[in-house]
């Protein structure tokens, strides 16, 4: 039923403009049955299968997604069984593989109609137009027929010359936050969401754990202030209310994988509220759900990861950390409290210089630290015994997506035979797959790269020079062969076991 409802919503959004049926793009919010692997099985009854016998299913060769809600799960299963029977009949000798197919759980083989997220299709003008229309539609849904003076959810425009390799990504300027284009007070967007969006876009709240927790707290406030309008169900209306907020936050700064998973969880919880539940009861239930999510997935997970990680820290270790990862800092502080003797080398990089925050916190605890920039890595690595890295997300093909520079550290550490340990909570695991840092990334404000030394700023007028571009990447992906171990709250696993964890997690849900 949930599957059908989601399909219906998507159908309403896309309207008649959805034409590409052959593409299999990635969707922002895949339905609860995930695809852990990229099996090449076609959608049930989508591609024409060369079956000589008259097939019992009645599908057209390439049905539009609108047909999907018409079939229920039982029907799909029947179709698949029938198709497998005919397959077996067609290839008579030795096709034991089809027998095995029936044993595989439905979830893994059910492919999803995936849609590429908008923020990696900036170079396609049709997609940008579609986003603008979507934003208008979302705000129209809230203010029926009211005269709006200004854009309630404005579309943020790109800034500066974009390097050609990254023309498919957004590049925003920090000096032009989205909130400048909003009318105050905003009637469509809740004020705590506006504040959150501003904090994201200015970099005040940064780091994937911090962002997720801030998001969840803001949503709690939204739920507290929410009242169900008459003739509406809380489970459906609240989800619709959240949609413009999410679009707004996405415009302020593209959502992180952890935020995406948190939003998925909230939406699921809201949709699961039974319709006969009273409003107050429903709201308290949701608030406790969110609190439990934060407690379980972030706080307790951090404790579990610390426990595992401290086993790996021995006396006399020299540990290298990069940038500021709240989880790695937590681990180091706890290890220090358990009186392990070690010293830390903090590696930092321009332009964010997040390592200074990590350095400050570690020095406050009394841990002896060394500070270097990332260009001094080859100089400092011979002293290092272990490298601890944090992650922004772990992708389904085993790649680690983290702050830009992490892959470099892993590479050089591997050359010097220093073990690399990545610490990551399971709620950051993501079903996306990526092999390079180009297709899906984030471009930060290019002006950050400018530096004034001795009163002179070399790149001051970079906008005037047409052939000069500044590139400020935020993330990069580290291949799994550079990573020796991933420490999660479920235990210590190799990098390639991520899809297994994803499957286990989804079966639980």
């Amino acid at each position: 039923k949930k599957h059908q409802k989601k399909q219906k919503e998507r159908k309403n959004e896309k309207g008649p403009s959805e034409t590409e049926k052959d593409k299999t793009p990635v969707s922002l919010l895949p339905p609860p049955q995930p695809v852990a692997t990229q099996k090449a099985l076609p959608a049930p009854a989508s591609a024409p299968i060369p079956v000589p016998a008259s097939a019992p299913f009645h599908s057209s060769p390439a049905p539009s997604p609108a047909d999907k809600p018409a079939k229920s799960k039982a029907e799909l299963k029947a179709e698949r069984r029938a198709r497998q029977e005919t397959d077996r009949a067609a290839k008579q000798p030795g096709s034991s593989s089809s027998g095995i197919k029936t044993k595989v759980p439905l979830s893994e083989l059910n492919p999803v109609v995936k849609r590429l997220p908008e923020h990696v299709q900036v170079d396609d003008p049709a997609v940008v137009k579609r986003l603008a229309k979507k934003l208008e539609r979302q705000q129209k849904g809230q203010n029926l027929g009211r005269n709006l003076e200004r854009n309630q959810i404005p579309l943020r425009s790109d800034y500066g010359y974009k390097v050609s390799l990254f023309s498919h990504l957004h590049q925003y300027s920090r000096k032009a936050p989205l909130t400048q284009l909003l009318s105050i007070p905003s009637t469509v967007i809740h004020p705590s969401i506006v504040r959150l969006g501003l904090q994201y876009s200015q970099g005040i709240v940064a780091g994937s754990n911090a962002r997720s927790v801030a998001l969840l707290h803001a949503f709690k406030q939204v739920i507290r202030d929410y009242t169900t309008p008459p003739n509406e169900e809380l489970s459906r209306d609240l989800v619709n209310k959240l949609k413009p907020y999410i679009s707004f936050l996405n415009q302020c700064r593209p959502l992180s994988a952890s935020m995406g998973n948190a939003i998925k969880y909230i939406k699921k919880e809201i949709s699961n509220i039974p319709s006969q539940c009273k409003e107050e009861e429903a709201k308290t239930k949701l608030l406790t759900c969110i609190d439990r999510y934060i407690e379980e997935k972030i706080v307790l997970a951090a404790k579990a990861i610390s426990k595992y990680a401290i086993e790996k820290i021995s006396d006399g270790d020299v540990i290298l950390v990069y940038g500021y990862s709240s989880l790695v800092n937590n681990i180091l502080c706890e290890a220090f409290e358990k009186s392990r003797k070690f010293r830390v080398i903090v590696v930092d990089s321009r332009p964010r210089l997040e390592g200074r925050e990590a350095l400050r916190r570690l020095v406050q605890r009394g841990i002896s630290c060394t500070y270097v920039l990332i260009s001094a890595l080859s100089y400092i690595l011979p002293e290092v015994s272990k490298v601890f890295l944090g992650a922004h997300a772990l992708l389904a093909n085993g790649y680690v997506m983290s702050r830009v520079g992490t892959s470099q550290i892993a590479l050089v550490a591997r050359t010097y035979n220093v073990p690399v340990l990545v610490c990551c909570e399971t709620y950051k695991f993501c079903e996306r797959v990526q092999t390079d840092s180009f297709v899906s990334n984030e471009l930060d404000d290019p002006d950050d790269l400018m530096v004034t030394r001795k009163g002179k700023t070399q790149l001051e007028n970079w906008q005037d020079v047409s052939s000069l571009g500044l590139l400020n990447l935020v993330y990069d992906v580290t291949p799994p062969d550079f990573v020796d171990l991933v420490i999660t709250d479920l235990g210590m696993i190799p990098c390639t076991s991520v899809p297994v964890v994803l499957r286990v997690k989804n079966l639980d849900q």
Partner: protein
Amino acid sequence: MPGADKETDLTERIEAFLADLKRGGSGTGPLRGSGEMARETTYLLRRITAQARWSSAGDLMEIIRNEGRRMTAAQPSETTVGNMVRRVLKIIREEYARSRGSSEETEQQESLHKLLTAGELSEETFREHFVHLKANVIEAINELLTELDGTTDNIAMQALEHIHSNEVIMTVGRSRTVEAFLKDAARKRKFHVIVAECAPFCQGHEMATGLSKVGIETTVIADAAIFAVMSRVNKVIIGTQTVLANGGLRAVNGTHSVALAARHHSTPLIICAPMFKLSPQVFTTCSLSLNDVNSCFPVLKILSKVNVHCPVFDYVPPELITLFISNIGGNAPSYIYRLMSELYHPEDHKL
């Protein structure tokens, strides 16, 4: 007495040069760039040859060796000074041998053949006095100076052989040689350059502005993004401070990471270095002075409780390097030891 005047004038100049050397290392002083430094050193050595009092080649070599030791002690991180001193010593040996009339082959370096066929040990004392030795040496030094003047152009002339159109080239920091190389290629070919800014001094910014002024498509990236963009790079072309005798490099901080990333993606690593950077020294590390560190990290109030490391140079082993482009052409790193033996005499390796 004119001789005494000349001598005081000479010592003054030497002291002035030593002071300049002490003040500026790594291109931050008045003598910018190793090319400048090599030229200045050679001018000074020519002046010493012309004005100092010496009677035989041995005396001259002693004088030059002493001055050379003082100059390298003033600024140990600048190896070009020592290289030029060794070149001039080799010139003196050659001219002496030529004046003596013995064939040039006896002055060549050790070879297995020589070891096996050497009769008695020939002790060269360089005590004989030749009238025209001074003129010959000065003429040879002038030739050396012309060679120094033309190095950048010679390297830049080879650019079109190595860069094709629509390439993406990565470079690190700022190198005058590489800048000339790329600008020369840009006259005929269209390509894209990615410059890593090379913190903390961010010399890459200067390089990028210089390149973009002649119309080359340039992108500036942070050091941290080097591995991330390396998969789209076709070639890495960098300069270096010194080329070591084994074919390795003593290059600016961060070059080793670039070399490793290039090796991982099987991208060729090309070094543009003129021959005067070739040095028989071993790799020694060198760190920034405290003043420079404070200027780089001004906001760090807890600096006193923290160790901060700021190395200036990196060692890059020869296995990571694909090609050296110098003013005499392209060479593999495995051939560098041979080139070095042609430039310097083995006894001069240690001044």
